[in-house]
């Protein structure tokens, strides 16, 4: 039996008087108790379909044709066409939250910050299944316990900002499922979460589905998640369905070129050495960039072997003054970066992997001298001078800045909306007084060619570009001063799979052509695998493992690295995740690490053991790591 049948659904938006179809005749069904994945890139119309099912289309949008038939298993004979229900009528409100639950991508903003978790869940319960207050509290606490809150009685009175991202999404699940809906719509439910937390939440969703028997409409762009969760898959592109069918057919025998391309565009662990990602749409061809101008004088007396950047025993603690508003202030310190040492060789790409809060962004800021570490040393050797970054002051620091540039995660907020592309790219040249006006303009034009953008775009403002194009502008800006080292802080995590492939390829090409050195920060292991030569894994402010790319992926030693690798969902039906492996508190919870890797307040300090061939792992000195592994 199908819970939901969507027939020839059309949804139009009217913006500034222009009517535009964003969903163009879509058909699919959701069988009872099964999971259907709706896969597509941003702008494909997948979220709009979910809004239509909930009757929550924005005011500018409307269903212009077709039907959304909902058949409630409790009243199996009655079929409701949601598309014909009045937008704020009683019928659709009874379905919403009562028979169809929904969870969203951002668990932080999806919960009201000024109401307790319990209050918000109870509201949903009382709307659809009114029960006495006492009973409601018991029901809600049982539900909170079911979704994984250890102390549900206390959790009831928590506010959303007091919870971690994973717990917030669990609270959202509790709220969506408290009325035992027949259908759960999950709109990118784990995109904002770390891989290990993602595995836990997905696992929870599957368990709850088995228990409560609801159907799930899973909206996502991550084929790895799809392969692990979906019974049936619907692939949507520009408001039209490209391909749909059971997960077996979709993954083993993809028919449509779009789906095949999508599978090829996402980086995965089985890529051959030197294999390139195939972007969904090939970016406009670009001529190879000119190699970086060689240093004026060749270094004398010193070997070329000195690493470009040497970080030694760097630590940074933040002091959090957590004064409860009416209470006594308590000061707690968080060690964001703890005794970190590594080298970056000239011309290599060092990957830095870790989950949110592990200190990787703090580390990049320390290297940039945007923050000052408490202790440690950072040396920069570009072949001419050997600089102690931390002791630079005034003009020396200013002179150092061009050697180190940064590419940011968010291509929207990292470009000023009030500057043209010309001004954005020229600004670094102006600040560092490189050449006169004409030379600067010529340089900007050359940069546009380097990153594959049309020179005619120079007078435009950032808002008229797509996310991928904006990220190209960000890359061009980082290249403007011919830096020795570029720090890429999650440069593709805000981009769609197809665009991500383009940008990654561009970065690789530029690195080869210009001999660039990258510090590539990401939480996505597959992306780092594609880009990096060596990879450092960071947890709780420390580098727990550092190894050449191949070694790290084939022979990881540290439990944290292993947990990370085990949590990454593959877009492959034969290698499904073992969800039960995910540790309860996330992979960075040291309590679940074997004794040899556990920091011990009384015992010996942990040290990096050299396993040979540049493979370092953080463990107790003398511990037989091979045995532990």
């Amino acid at each position, binding site marked *: 039996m199908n819970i939901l049948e969507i027939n020839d659904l059309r949804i139009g938006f009217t913006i500034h008087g222009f009517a535009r179809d964003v969903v163009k005749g879509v058909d699919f069904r959701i069988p009872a108790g099964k999971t259907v994945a709706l896969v597509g890139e941003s702008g494909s119309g997948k979220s709009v379909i979910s809004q239509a099912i*909930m009757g*929550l289309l924005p005011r500018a949008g409307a269903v212009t044709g077709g039907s959304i038939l909902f058949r409630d298993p409790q009243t199996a004979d009655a079929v409701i066409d949601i598309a014909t229900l009045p937008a*704020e009528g009683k019928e659709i*409100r*009874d*379905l*919403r*939250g*009562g028979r169809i*639950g*929904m969870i*969203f991508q*951002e668990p932080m*903003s*999806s*919960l*009201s*910050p*000024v*109401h307790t978790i319990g209050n918000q869940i109870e*509201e*949903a319960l009382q*709307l*659809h299944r009114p029960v006495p207050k006492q009973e409601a509290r018991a029901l809600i606490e049982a539900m909170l316990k079911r979704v994984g809150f250890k102390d549900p009685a206390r959790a009831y009175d928590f*506010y959303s*900002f*007091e919870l971690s991202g994973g717990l917030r999404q669990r609270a*959202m699940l509790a*709220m969506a499922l408290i009325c035992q809906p027949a259908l759960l719509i999950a709109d990118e439910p784990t995109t904002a979460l770390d891989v290990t937390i993602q595995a836990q939440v997905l696992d929870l969703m599957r368990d709850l589905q088995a228990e409560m028997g609801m159907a799930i409409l899973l909206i996502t762009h991550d084929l790895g998640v799809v392969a692990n969760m979906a019974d049936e898959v619907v692939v949507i592109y520009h408001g039209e369905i490209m391909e749909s069918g059971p997960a077996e057919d979709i993954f083993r025998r993809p028919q449509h070129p779009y789906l095949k391309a999508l599978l090829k565009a996402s980086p995965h662990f089985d890529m051959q050495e030197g294999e390139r990602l195939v972007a969904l749409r090939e970016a406009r061809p670009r001529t190879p960039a000119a190699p970086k101008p060689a240093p004026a004088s060749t270094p004398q007396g010193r070997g070329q072997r000195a690493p470009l950047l040497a970080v030694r025993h760097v630590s940074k603690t*933040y*002091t*959090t*003054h*957590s*004064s*409860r*508003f*009416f*209470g006594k202030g308590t000061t707690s310190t968080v060690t964001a970066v703890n005794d970190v040492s590594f080298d970056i060789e000239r011309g290599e790409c060092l990957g830095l992997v870790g989950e949110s809060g592990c200190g990787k962004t703090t580390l990049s800021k320390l290297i940039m001298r945007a*923050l000052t570490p408490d202790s440690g040393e950072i040396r920069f050797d570009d072949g001419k001078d050997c600089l102690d970054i931390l002791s630079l002051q005034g003009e020396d620091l200013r002179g150092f800045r061009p050697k180190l540039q940064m590419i940011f995660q968010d291509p929207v907020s990292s470009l000023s909306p009030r500057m043209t592309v010309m001004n954005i790219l020229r600004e670094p040249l102006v600040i560092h007084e490189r050449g006169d006006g004409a030379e600067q303009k010529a340089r900007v034009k050359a940069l546009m060619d380097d990153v594959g953008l049309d020179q005619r775009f120079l007078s435009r403002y950032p808002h008229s570009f797509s996310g991928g194009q904006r990220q190209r502008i960000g890359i061009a800006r980082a290249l403007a001063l011919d830096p020795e080292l570029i720090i890429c802080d999650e440069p593709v995590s805000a981009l769609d799979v197809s665009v991500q492939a383009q940008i990654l390829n561009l970065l690789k090409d530029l690195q080869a052509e210009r001999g660039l050195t990258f510090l590539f920060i990401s939480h996505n292991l597959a992306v780092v695998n594609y880009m990096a030569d060596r990879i450092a894994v960071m947890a709780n402010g420390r580098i727990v493992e550092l190894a050449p790319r191949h070694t790290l992926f084939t022979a990881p030693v540290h439990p944290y690295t292993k947990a990370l690798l085990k949590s990454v969902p593959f877009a492959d039906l034969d290698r499904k995740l073992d969800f039960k492996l995910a540790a309860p508190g996330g992979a960075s919870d040291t309590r679940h690490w074997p004794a040899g890797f556990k920091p011990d307040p009384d015992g010996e300090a942990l040290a990096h053991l050299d396993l040979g061939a540049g493979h370092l792992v953080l463990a107790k000195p003398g511990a037989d790591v091979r045995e532990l592994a």
Partner: protein
Amino acid sequence: MLLKYIFKRILVMIPTLFVTSVLIFTVINLPEGDYFETMVAEMQAQGEKADMSRVEFLKKEYGFDKPPAERYFWWVTGLLRGDMGYSFEYQLPVRDIVGDRLLLTMIVSFFTIIFTWIVAFPIGIYSATHQYSWGDYGLTFIGMLGLAIPHFLLALIFLYFANIWFGTSIGGLVDPQYLNQPMSWAKFRSVLEHLWIPVIIIGAGGTAGMIRKLRANLLDELQKQYYVTARAKGLPPGKALRKYPLRMALNFFISDIGDILPSIVSGAEIVAIVLSLQTTGPLLIRALQSQDMYLAGSFLMFLSFLTVIGVLISDIALALLDPRIRLQGTATK
């Protein structure tokens, strides 16, 4: 806990008020001369002869021959004892002059604020939930008129029509016959009869401003994901709106309390002059013009004190209402 917080806040108020008092004293003393020189100049301009020996005596009496620092000291210590000084112009202690007008001012301002809230709230909510509709445009237009037309002009128009249509006497807050009578039922009715004009006029600008602020705040909140979540639970739109976005939009409203307290007392000066209201606003302006420094200075000090108290009240109210402020630690780097 709360008491400790309030105690801490009050301690912080002391330096704030000290700096304010220095500023007020300095600014009032900045123009050339003092009250007596202004008085002499005015008398000479009118062809009268000033008794210079008496002026010299008064100057000495009030300590104008002393250095400013000393005068400041006497003024401030007086304030601390509740002595707001002596008005030269009215030949009365400042407290007596201000006290009389304070009640009327508060009546006018209180009703103005109530009027502003009653009108602005529904309109703001309507405008935000019906963005770009004819209703939104129409109400915005009327609000803009209220904001754009100078108050004194509006005051003259209202006076004219109130007199023609309702026979309300021109100016003042009561009919002239009740002027020096004790409060009675008839006088009270007369006050109410006159009150609506200043209330509407003074409230017009504030109402328009508040509508715009509420509309903008609410529009922001309506975009938020948690509002979609609330509707996805099946809440009726009105209830969802009240419980979530409106609650969040209230924050700005509460932080406004800090501004409201002093405005209750100071009243709208220009309008009060045009309408010849016996409120404190015209008094302050006159005092500043004639350099009646103790009257002006003490009154300004009183306003600053109310501002600081208002901010304190709004901070406490915000903390009680918004758990993020109450519970979240402030991280320092």
